[in-house]
């Protein structure tokens, strides 16, 4: 027997089992990845299926007679009186003008219900306040349809089910078809969703107040957490004496990163609102609370980035007579910058998606004004989503899904930015 022991049957069998092991491992890995992709795909698909239609809305075009009698007499006209004019009757007349043979009050109500009442009256009010000269003339206005009509036209309400089981009557459907045949109904991009604050009427609800609130929160959290976090990380890694206290601080910062975020909300409620007396529901408090949330993440990311810088760079600077501070800030920190930035952006994405702590500090209010300062009541995007998701109507679930898509798009953009920054700044080394 002169066969090498690597060529024996036993060795061959062993080799075969090694390959089998490798194939099995690859199969497990691949299935895990596929499962993850499939889950994500399913999530996105169902969001798109529900939410995509919310990006368009149906509008009806009417001719409105701006009857002088609906307004205060000319000598008493001011922004105040113009605001409280009888716009409702103007709108009613405008829609009735389209259907002259509708006579009874009940029928008129049904007809009027086709359009968004607040949508139409707000539209007129804004135009009149901007330009009171249109009083007395006839104007063309394009206003949102009511949410029921919008849903019907989008096909989300089945016109074939018995009348009693839908909120829109056969007669209303006939009128709608008539309006459509006359070209008075159009489907347009739903700018309301982006530029309006929240509303009780789904066709008028938008994410603007929440988005502005979120931007304010993220900026405040960034301004507070970034310098403190980066500073703390640099101090801990480079300058703090290596002793028990430092270890203790380090452990607790790591623990902080693992604290459930709702605890930060409780802390914010107890400290910022109850002790310092800040108002509830304001972005300033939200930003401060979420700065606490982002702080440990930024510290951890910064320290990882600092450690990935080759010690040879610091040695090089020290050997040239740089002081410790110079070596750290002229060599180490600049080289860690891509990592620090990436970590910060990721932590800001975390802040943007955070909901629970904001609930604790009362940022769940129904906000119908776009906040202009950091002490105006506001909500945040995820909270807005949470609020809308509580309404079961199709018009709301569609907008909820659309808002989730918008939030996801922003988060993905932030993450893409982080990746891009890392690879770009990394290349320059």
């Amino acid at each position, binding site marked *: 027997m002169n066969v090498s022991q690597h060529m024996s049957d036993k060795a061959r069998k062993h080799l075969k089992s090694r390959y089998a092991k490798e194939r099995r491992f690859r199969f497990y890995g691949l299935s895990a990845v596929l499962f993850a992709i499939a889950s994500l795909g399913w999530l996105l698909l169902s969001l798109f299926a529900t939410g995509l239609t919310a990006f368009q809305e149906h509008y009806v075009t009417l001719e409105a007679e701006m009857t002088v009698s609906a307004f205060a007499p000319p000598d008493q006209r001011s922004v105040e009186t113009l605001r409280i004019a009888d716009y409702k009757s103007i709108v009613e007349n405008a829609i009735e003008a389209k259907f002259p043979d509708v006579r009874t009050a009940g029928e008129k109500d049904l007809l009027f219900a086709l359009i968004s009442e607040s949508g139409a009256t707000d539209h007129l009010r804004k135009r009149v306040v901007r330009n009171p000269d249109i009083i007395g003339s006839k104007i063309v206005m394009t206003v949102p349809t009511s949410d029921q009509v919008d849903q019907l036209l989008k096909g989300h309400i089945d016109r074939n089910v018995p009348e009693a089981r839908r909120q829109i009557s056969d007669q209303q459907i006939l009128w709608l078809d008539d309006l459509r045949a006359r070209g008075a109904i159009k489907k347009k991009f739903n700018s309301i969703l982006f530029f309006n604050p929240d509303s009780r009427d789904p066709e008028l609800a938008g994410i603007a107040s929440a988005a502005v609130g979120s931007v304010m929160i993220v900026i405040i959290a960034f301004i507070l957490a970034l310098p403190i976090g980066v500073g703390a990380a640099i101090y801990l890694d480079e300058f703090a004496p*290596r002793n028990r206290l430092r270890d203790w601080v380090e452990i607790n910062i790591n623990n902080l990163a693992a604290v459930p975020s709702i605890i930060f909300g409780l802390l914010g409620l107890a400290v910022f609102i109850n002790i310092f007396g800040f108002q509830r529901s304001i972005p300033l408090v939200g930003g401060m609370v979420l700065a606490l949330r982002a702080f440990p993440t930024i510290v951890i990311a910064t320290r990882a980035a600092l450690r990935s810088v*080759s010690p*040879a*760079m*610091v*040695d*090089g*600077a*020290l*050997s*040239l*007579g*740089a*002081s410790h501070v*110079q070596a750290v800030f*002229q*060599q180490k920190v600049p*080289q860690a910058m891509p990592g620090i930035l990436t970590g910060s952006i990721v932590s800001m994405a975390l802040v943007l998606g955070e909901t629970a702590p904001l609930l604790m500090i009362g940022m769940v209010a129904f906000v119908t004004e776009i906040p202009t300062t950091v002490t105006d009541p506001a909500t945040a995007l995820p909270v807005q989503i949470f609020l809308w998701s509580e309404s079961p109507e199709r018009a709301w679930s569609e907008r909820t899904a659309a808002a989730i898509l918008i939030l996801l798009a922003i988060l993905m953009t932030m993450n893409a930015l982080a990746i891009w920054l890392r690879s770009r700044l990394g290349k*320059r*080394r």
Partner: protein
Amino acid sequence: MTDKIKFKCRNVRVQYGDLEALHGIDIDIADRGVTAFIGPSGCGKSTFLRAFNRMNETIGGAKFSGQILMDGEDIYDPSLDPVLLRARVGMVFQKPNPFPKSIYDNVAYGPRIHGLTETQAELDSLVEKSLRRAGLWEEVKDRLTEQGTDLSGGQQQRLVIARAIAISPEVILMDEPASALDPIATARLEALIEELKTRYCIIIVTHSMAQAARVSDKTAFFYEGDLIEYDDTEKIFTNPDNQRTQDYITGRTG
């Protein structure tokens, strides 16, 4: 070669925690010329080298005792700032470590932090002079704005030397400067050391017997934290007094 002494070391001990890496070294190092430190891995050559610019202090847990006099002045005097010492005692590391900046900024880094030049023109000429001395000027004069890290290993090592001599040190410490270089780059580096030794006191750690024999005037052989033999290089490589030295240079221990 003058007989002037640059460093007088007496009973130098360095401890890392409980481990004593150097057990009391006494040595005098000449003011001009090249002194080579040789010895098996782990014998304490790098540790000793770092004692000359107090770089050991940047390593947590390293403790120094004994005395090193530089031109008669105790470099471990608490009143002496290591930052100033390191401006006078430059260092070149085993792996070339240019900063991820332009070639120009690499060389200008030292002069800038020490405020050695007043005007841009002065700095420009200092950078050029340093690069010329390091034998790199001709190769990089048209690409001073390129990244120092984009140069070849041998060029990087010469860049690092240019960076060190830009602040006009009196001493250059080199820890295995050629170990990451190919033979041609090594030959250039050795030629450079040959040139620099007329102006600077150079201490070089090397694992190459041939290199030590070629470039150095004096050679010190270390073994397990002790200085075994220190003499003219020629003497060490032809007729050492100590059997251990003999064994090491002939390759019987390593």
